[in-house]
């Protein structure tokens, strides 16, 4: 029995089905990331787990206990929100201790718990300030601290890094990963950013239009996507999809990641002209316009000098290419 079990969970708003039957088990101590484009229902699913929305049908169980009828505060969960959602009228200390106070914990115990969490996140000097006096990064650390204080069975993160700038996002991402190792707690994390998903997750759940497309470890999804959606969503830059017929193959679509295409000025499988080059230092992205396959992205490691409008030839790595049928489903070799 896992820390969280969803059985046939659906959610409809009026006639619109937002979640169309999700079955999922999250193991104790696992870091599970829900990822998908906006509007795929990942936040709604998280809110159903938290008890902020009722499931239309299906069962939500936390540590083997059915919690469909249990109030959010009694589900032994803590949640970190995208907009931090700190109480504006309370100090950092009171913000962090409020849940315990509501639960009737003794004052001395609350102080001890808050201090312990504050130590973990280096919030000590901020404890007597109000949210208005904190920067965005500090506010999100307080929000995470507020979650830790409760010692929940389940941490829920709702796009916690979306409002932070790029540098702070990386720092907070590392912080969250460290906390997960330190606390060993079960965490569910919602994001639309596949990099966050890849770097944090033990297991990724890819959602689209209210349905689970694939569940697996980050590298499993990268190396073994079940369909074109997962293949295109995981990995950056996005996978190239080629018309297999034009290459003389039997499948409908051929998926090749930008890093699995070789580029040459002299000869290769597909000819095209360079339409744009992005030099990132460690890697160079070359966008090649081909008459037969449209715009293809090639990722080269190191620095390369390709000029716009130059002719270039691409060679695909057949061993790393994925075959898909007309419906977008993966065709496995020999199967």
């Amino acid at each position, binding site marked *: 029995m896992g820390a969280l079990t969803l059985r046939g969970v659906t959610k409809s708003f009026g006639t619109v089905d937002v979640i169309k039957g999700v079955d999922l088990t999250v193991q104790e101590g696992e870091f599970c990331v829900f990822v998908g484009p906006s509007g795929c229902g990942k936040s709604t699913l998280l809110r159903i787990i938290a008890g902020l929305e009722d499931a239309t049908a299906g069962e939500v169980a936390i540590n083997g206990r059915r919690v469909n009828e249990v109030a959010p505060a009694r589900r032994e969960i803590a949640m970190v929100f995208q*907009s931090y959602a700190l109480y504006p009228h309370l100090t950092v200390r009171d913000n962090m201790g409020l*849940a315990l106070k509501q639960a009737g914990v003794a004052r001395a115990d609350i102080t001890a718990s808050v201090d312990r969490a504050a130590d973990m996140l280096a919030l000590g000097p901020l404890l007597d300030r109000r949210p208005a006096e904190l920067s965005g990064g500090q506010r999100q650390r307080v929000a995470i601290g507020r979650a830790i204080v409760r010692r929940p069975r389940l941490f829920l993160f709702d796009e916690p890094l979306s409002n932070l700038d790029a540098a702070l996002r990386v720092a907070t991402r590392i912080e969250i990963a460290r906390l997960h190792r330190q606390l060993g707690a079960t965490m569910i994390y919602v994001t639309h950013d596949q990099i966050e998903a890849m770097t944090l997750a033990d297991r990724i759940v890819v959602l689209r239009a209210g349905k689970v497309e694939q569940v697996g470890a980050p590298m499993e999804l990268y190396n073994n996507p079940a369909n074109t959606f997962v293949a295109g969503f995981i990995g950056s830059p996005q996978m190239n999809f080629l018309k297999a017929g034009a290459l003389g193959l039997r499948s409908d679509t051929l998926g090749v990641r930008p890093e699995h295409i070789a580029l040459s000025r002299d000869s290769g499988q597909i000819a095209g002209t360079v339409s744009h080059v992005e030099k990132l230092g460690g890697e160079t992205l070359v966008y090649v316009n081909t008459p037969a396959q449209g715009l293809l992205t090639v990722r080269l490691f190191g620095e390369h000098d390709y000029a716009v409008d130059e002719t270039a030839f691409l060679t695909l790595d057949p061993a790393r290419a994925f075959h898909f049928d007309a419906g977008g489903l993966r065709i496995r070799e020999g199967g």
Partner: protein
Amino acid sequence: MAQARISAGQSIAAHAVLITYTLIALFPVFVILINSFKSRKAIFAEPLALPTRDTFDLIGYTTVLKQGDFFGYFQNSMIVTVASLFFVLIFGAMAAFALSEYRFRGNLLTGLYLALGIMIPIRLGTVAILELMVASGLVNTLMALILVYTAQGLPLAVFILSEFMKQVSDDLKNAGRVDGLSEYTIFFRLVLPLVRPAMATVAVFTMIPIWNDLWFPLILAPAESVKTITLGSQVFIGQFVTNWNAVLAALSLAILPVLVLYLIFSRQLIRGITAGAVK
């Protein structure tokens, strides 16, 4: 930075327009105030002159304070206004919270029904209201006025407050739910402080018509013991003779309490603790 955005000329023009409007708006009040301190003859001789040593006269104020229970009227007006305001704000805010926060069947219809009250004047129902008050024995009580004014103020309050409550971050309310706060605590401790500027706006818009109303006090509560200040002042306006000194003095005095209430609410309008709550 201000200089960079607005040139001196624009600034002067804007101020000129605003100052002119302020003068026009305040002029009647100014005329009432200066004339309330003048003798009857001086009022008619030179209505726009300031009271001088010769024309200064407190006769209006002494008449007002001697005749009738003026402080009683004041008290009645205060009770009616403050109580109505309290009920309008509390029920209006609660209804607005329910309409903006909870999804339920008939939500939109209920909101429209409540908004209908903005468009249909409550005075159309005066006869029915009077019959209702007679039947329930509330004629000549302050309670009658409080109930009517609460009904009168609710539509606008619900309409304005529900718009503002929709803007309060869902995350904040949900954080409260996860932390075990009751819906009432979320409403009173998290949401209300954040919509305080809107509450102040509603309070001002609700308060002024109630304080100034003559219609319902005249019909529902004309008895001496429950007269409001506007009704009480009518004593001095006769069909043939009007005691202008007393009328002007009564009006000047009647400005004071609303002014105090307004100052209290406008301070709330300015104060913003919302900053930093979310994002």
